[in-house]
């Protein structure tokens, strides 16, 4: 399972159908879901928690929880990736709630920022500006951006994860991107 993990934007319904046919099929479907979502899920959780160790714990817990519940997944209620990210979101928010680390959402995630060494100075500077601009966003806006660009979810999947309509998700995402751009301009 090492190496390049394919992105799972195009996971089709056939995979989900397999999950409901037999335990073995469900295992295979979950394996594929895991392979396609491992890094995306970690990236999303890490952006929420802003703590690499906690992100690892929550990512592992979310996968385990999803694995235990894999037979209960109802394909009619949404995409498997959205279902998995919903579980991870709840786990991450519970972790934040439990540790009382809400304030840390606005803290600088130093251990997550490791870029610039191999990049050009201009590019490095730009990315630092983007990173700083991200920090100026509200946690909810930052989560939207994480779901879109870190986890690679589509608007429909984001809507399912957040429990809002797809158009609402698109609108919120657009606003968040506008704010991010403005913040980048402000920093520049």
């Amino acid at each position: 399972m090492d190496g390049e993990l394919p992105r799972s934007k195009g996971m089709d319904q056939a995979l989900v159908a397999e999950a409901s046919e037999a335990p073995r099929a469900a295992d295979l479907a979950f394996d594929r879901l895991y392979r396609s979502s491992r890094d995306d899920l970690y990236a999303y959780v890490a952006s929420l928690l802003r703590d690499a160790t906690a992100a690892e714990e929550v990512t592992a817990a979310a996968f385990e929880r999803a694995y235990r519940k894999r037979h209960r997944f109802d394909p009619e209620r949404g995409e498997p990736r959205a279902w998995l990210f919903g579980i991870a979101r709840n786990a991450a928010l519970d972790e934040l709630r439990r540790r009382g680390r809400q304030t840390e959402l606005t803290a600088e995630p130093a251990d997550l920022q490791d870029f610039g060494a191999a990049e050009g100075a201009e590019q490095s500077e730009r990315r630092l500006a983007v990173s700083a601009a991200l920090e100026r966003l509200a946690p909810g806006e930052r989560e939207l951006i994480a779901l879109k660009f870190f986890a690679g979810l589509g608007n429909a999947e984001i809507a399912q994860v957040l429990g809002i309509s797809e158009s609402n998700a698109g609108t919120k995402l657009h606003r968040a991107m506008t704010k991010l751009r403005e913040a980048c301009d402000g920093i520049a």
Partner: protein
Amino acid sequence: MESPREDQLTADLRALRPAPRPEFAAELDQRAAAGFPRRSRLGKKGAPAFLTSMRDKRPAHPRRLLLTAGGLALTTVAVATVLVVSNEDEPTHGVVAQAVEHAKPKRNFDGAGPYVPSRGTAGAASSSEQGSGVQYEAEVETAPSASSAKQIVPFSQESPSFNSSFGARHRDVERSAEITLGAEPDDVADDAAKVFEAVHAHDGIVMRSSTHEGKAGEAGATFELLIPSAKLGDALAAFSQIDAVRSRHEATADITAPTVSAAELLKESRARIDSLLGQLEEAETESEREAIEVELQHERRHASRLAAQLDHLHRRADFSRVYLRIATGESNESSGGGAWGVDDALGDAGHILAVAAAVAVVALAILGPIALIAFLAWLTHRAWVRRERRRVLS
């Protein structure tokens, strides 16, 4: 269509995407390949820190909780059913019946002296009843020499006066029985004769009897008997041998309290008589003597009534009333002494099911509100958790 600036921002954002450590990715892949074994099992083999640290955070599976709760409820219902059914199988009158079952007769009834409730425990009661008078001795004459049903049982619920008078724990138990024998019309006379023989053999008394001849259903006999309580079991066994037993019921009643009360009152009355006799001897004037004699007469009547009452209570304890019926023709009653058949089995099964249903209803009455409260608590907790999660990102 995204502008070049938009493309650049998107690329920058993707470049900022946090990536997992290779070690963590490898560990997670291992766990995924093993089907995400439970952390408790991993912990024993030295699981990664990030996994073992989460061990205690995972909430119990709702389905497992439901199964556990269901199993617990089922066990409770089963135990309650067993308890109820086993209680119903025991003789009637609960504690008293158990006392009759297990205790041995202890009453010392020698047929000449006053009533002594128990060997070596009469104490003050015995001595104070020495001068009990004619009535009390008459009771002894009417009572048989057989030992009575007064027994020592391990109870501690007697009144202080009871303990102070008798010094030990006693129970006066009145027993009664009903037995119905099924017979052919031609056998009724023979069976009735055998009943008389059995009563005589067990020192019993036939209070009332009647015999009818005729066809099946008409012919029969009824007996009202008094059997010495100590011999009741043997007598019932003898009656059961006469013909087929159609039904048999036994009952017990605790008459300790009225017996003790009557004995206490009698004792006080006799003490009062003794005192009045003393006063009579010392009386100096005629009017004084007359007044004492009137009072003495009144007290003697009172003592006589109490002695009769006590006598009656002793008879009730000493003799068991037995109603015996010899019936002919079809019986609607289930046979108590006949072979256990399909009808009996169906009856028993129905009874057990009825008891189980009753227990289930009681259990539901208890578990229902608990389940409702638990459900409401769960809903509240869920709503609270959702609100808290929203607050985290607000």
